[in-house]
């Protein structure tokens, strides 16, 4: 019997066969729109998909493909984000969402010809005109009886809940990894300030732990990034940037080696600041012109520090470049002003530019000296600072942060205060939350709720709360289970 492998929050994980099937499905879906059914290559792809379907159905009978909470499931096994080849996943999920479609069930007696007809059909529907019921009728009339469409509601109701205890354990583990990352950053900063060797192996391994967490459940680390009042902002900022950057990198399906390089680059992106006067970094007031001139030296100082103190390899080469150009804009404005060659900024620097700005503005510890709510930060980044950032990467980052970023404190229609734990991509307005208080005060035992579940129909988020305004500390809600 095949052993089931679960992730730390109890979701059964798909294996390579399921991932391969799903990818084949996406490829067919995309190609069906542009290729004729009679095309030989297309028919070959259908045949390939059919074979894979048959193999799986031998094990489990009918085969289902479902999507909920922004994740894909084959026979109720979750296909992880870091599985290769999930191209087009986002687009298809969005289209299905618009249709109210939650999944597809293929019965054991389906033929390759039926698959071909179905793919052609489903890829051509217009969400504004159709819904699940009308589609199911159309399938019947076309004689496609071996395929059943599942509505989003049906899928939503049927899915298992995630054990609260498992979630708690996973979040505890995420905290441990996050604080380890803080410790590593502190180590890096102290050694760099003294021009000593930095322990690169340790740094890489912490990055690997962060990546492992993010690929399983990004939100548990993202909520820790929402804590903005660590004693030493510098360490937390670098760690936050690392977490955000890795989350973006995972969404981009970067391979493990490059994720490792990205995380490493993110941790070191502001290392040049240790060479600046500490009064400048900790200055409570807004910067004046001289302060800015000094601050703008940190990319150059950072790149030099990395190249001087570390052995050259792909990680340090990437980190040096990221440190140097993470404030260089798309149109080569920003700083430092390039003197020699207008070389386009590389992918990692673009990623770090976005997440660095986001964390800095939403922390309010630098530049502005007051925090801006995340949704306002994103708006500012889209409308007023668009010249700085890669627009496509910014959109992906938008999706990650969502309306209510993990770690936000919100007010519910049921007059409760809740902490957002997990973004729900299928419905960003209905995340997974931890209810921490009501009119009477804090709850002795927080209650966990998945607002996207039909049982929570009465609970909706009214707005975000700025905890500091009410003498609340979000950190306490995040860290206290």
């Amino acid at each position, binding site marked *: 019997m095949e052993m089931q492998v679960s992730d730390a929050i109890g979701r059964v994980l798909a294996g390579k066969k399921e991932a391969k099937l799903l990818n084949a499905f996406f490829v067919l879906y995309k190609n069906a729109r542009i290729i004729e059914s009679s095309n030989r290559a297309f028919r070959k792809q259908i045949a390939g998909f059919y074979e894979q379907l048959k193999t799986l159905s031998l094990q489990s009978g009918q085969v289902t493909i479902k999507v909920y909470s922004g994740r894909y499931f084959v026979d109720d096994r979750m296909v992880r984000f870091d599985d290769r080849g999930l191209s087009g996943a986002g687009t298809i999920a969005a289209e299905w969402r618009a249709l109210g479609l939650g999944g597809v069930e293929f019965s054991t007696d389906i033929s390759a010809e039926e698959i071909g007809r179905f793919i052609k059909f489903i890829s051509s529907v217009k969400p504004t005109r159709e819904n699940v019921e009308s589609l199911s009728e159309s399938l019947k009339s076309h004689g496609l009886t071996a395929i059943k469409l599942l509505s989003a509601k049906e899928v939503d109701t049927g899915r298992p809940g995630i054990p609260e205890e498992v979630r708690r354990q996973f979040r505890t583990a995420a905290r441990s990894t996050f604080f380890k990352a803080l410790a590593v950053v502190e180590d890096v900063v102290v050694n760099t300030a003294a021009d000593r060797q930095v322990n690169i192996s340790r740094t890489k391994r912490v990055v690997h732990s962060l990546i492992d967490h993010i690929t399983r459940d990004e939100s548990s680390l993202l909520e820790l990034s929402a804590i903005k009042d660590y004693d030493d902002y510098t360490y937390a900022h670098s760690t936050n940037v690392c977490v955000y950057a890795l989350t973006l990198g995972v969404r981009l399906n970067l391979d493990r080696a490059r994720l490792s390089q990205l995380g490493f680059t993110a941790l070191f992106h502001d290392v040049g600041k240790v060479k600046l006067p500490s009064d400048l970094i900790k200055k409570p007031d807004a910067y004046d012109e001289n302060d800015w001139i000094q601050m703008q030296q940190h990319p150059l100082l950072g790149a030099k520090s990395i190249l001087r103190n570390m052995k050259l390899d792909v990680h340090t080469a990437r980190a040096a470049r990221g440190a140097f150009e993470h404030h260089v804009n798309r149109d080569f404005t920003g700083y430092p002003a390039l003197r020699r060659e207008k070389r386009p900024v590389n992918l990692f620097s673009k990623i770090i530019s976005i997440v660095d700005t986001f964390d800095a503005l939403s922390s309010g510890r630098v530049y502005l000296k007051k925090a801006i709510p995340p949704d306002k930060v994103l708006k500012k980044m889209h409308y007023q600072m668009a010249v700085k950032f890669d627009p496509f990467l910014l959109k992906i980052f938008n999706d990650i942060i969502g309306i209510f970023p993990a770690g936000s404190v919100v007010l519910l229609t049921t007059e409760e205060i809740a902490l957002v734990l997990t973004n729900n991509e299928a419905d960003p307005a209905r995340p997974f939350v931890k209810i921490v208080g009501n009119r009477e005060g804090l709850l002795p035992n927080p209650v966990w709720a998945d607002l996207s579940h039909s049982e929570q129909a009465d609970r909706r988020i009214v707005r975000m709360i700025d905890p500091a*305004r009410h003498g609340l500390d979000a950190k306490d809600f995040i860290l206290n289970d």
Partner: protein
Amino acid sequence: MNLGVDKRQALIKDIRFILKDLLKVIKVVSMYPEDNPLPQSLKQSFAERLESLSEEYGDIAISVEKDLLKYESEVVYEDRGGDDRLAGIFFETGITDFTFKDGLDVNEVFILLDVIKKYMNCPDKSLDLAALIWESGVTNFTFGTIEDIVLSQYDGSFNLQAFMDADDSGHHRQVIFGTDTVENYAAIFDQHTESSEIDLNEPEAPGSSVLLSGSPGVGGLTPSLPVPGQKPPSVFDIEGMDEIAARTSEAAAAMGLNDLPVSSSRGPDTTLILNDEFRLSEEEEEITARLCTEDAQFDIYDSTQSLLKEILHQEADFRGFSEAVTICEKVLNEFVLAGKLIQSGQLLQYIIELESRLRSDKPRWADRLRDATVMAGSRDRLKALAEGLNKHPETGVRELARYLDNFDWQALSGITDLLGDFEHRTHRETLCDFLTKKGTDNLDLVSQGIFDKRWYVVRNSISILARIGSDRALELLKRTLDHEDERVRMALVQELKECPNDRALELLTAAVRDRDAQIRTEAVNSIIARRGRPAFEAVEAAISEENLATLDQPDRMALLKAYSILGGEAAVPFLSQLILRPNLFRERLVSDLRAAAFEALCHNRSEKCERTLLKLSRNWRPDIKGQAGSALRRRREIIYGGD
């Protein structure tokens, strides 16, 4: 894992076996090339055994100590030293435990073995095995590292609840939660408005492209709160699609403008998130995928080289500039060690160009760059070049030649000294070419080596001077004719073979009288190899009867042979003379000379020689007749397919 005693014993035995097997496979795989069938079959059988072991027993967790591997406190492997150090491989990289998880399949085992092979074969052991295993993505082999222990003191189980419950919880609550009162909480719900204006007017940084926000409309944060007692309307209408479509057009109109209309919704402004304009389309997904694919072409040497060039231009003061140049020197060394001579040559070339550009306006800066160029040709840096080339024999000679073109005479003595450190002949040849080219005008530098105590340094200098071949060079080489080390003298006669100057024959002729027989023979061979009239004349001068009389028979034979080969027809009369000299008193010398002359004629390809030998084979003197006959036969063997 709860097993019966017998089953546990069987498991321990299996684990011991599999670990021994693992070590054997690692050794074989590390030694043989990838396509060799032996490691392939070993890998396959090992992988299958490991897969079935983990299928049978589930997860197998092994703890790592300095030279031990343990399964549940039972020692299952012990290092024996030398190559037998499986525990050491994991221990030295900081791995404290590893687990073969249930579900480990043959493919993953192959990947794991390849990773370990890569680690083992890294010449300077600079790779991190833990990082390599992680990057390989083998999910069913997990491990813990020393950092997990070291950093555990920073464990973030920050349990506020326990802290609060400990004692005086009221006070703690006060401290932690501030004004934590019912009234305060109620105020959150009862406030009608918040001062919702967020001032996005951030101070303009010099040179910053951040635009100022002028509109009070931007950033209307929160709507009015519901009146207490009244159920607030839902923020998200079920017909949200239409509303969003309407807001899409508002957002679209607002894009690119500083003013945004005040949000009238009762929730956060969700335009940015729910608006499809802010989601990736399929084309944009493809563009993003292309970004990632292009990024995969990142080359660390090209990137670092261009970054360093930019950094040099960024510096505003001499101190920073000097530091940047120091960094360039350090990185140059690393490039060279990695065998990346193209990139290091480009960087060095850039430094040289920059120096000439700065020479008039910033002479001090130019001097600093000059120092860097000179340092690149210093002994230490050249040692790195030797190390890099030896580790990377695939480095082309053209790359090396172009790299060397950046150096001037200052590097000559260093390279000459280190010539013997270069293991690969093609690299040595290229270096010799360089030294020959540059050394012609700097003989004193190149020739310093001939006074060195180390024989190989002397040899290196000889090699270069012989290639240069000027009269002065040969004069310098003469000093090594009497060198005490025969290896040096042997190198001299070998190198003079190719010397372009015919005066080399003088030295070779002198070397024919060397005290070492092998050197004498080699000297003669070198003369023969030079061919031509000058070589013949040199030998001719050396074979007067007085001279021949002083030599040993092997040397005589060698010299006469050289004379015969080089002279062809011209050599026949003298050799005949030696043969036909009367030997009434049976003098040994005459017999020896006769024998040597016959032997020499065996190697003479001229027609005259053939005729002479035929004639001699009909001589009335039986000894001459006999020897001539033998010489004829031997000659035919040598020339027509004997020797």
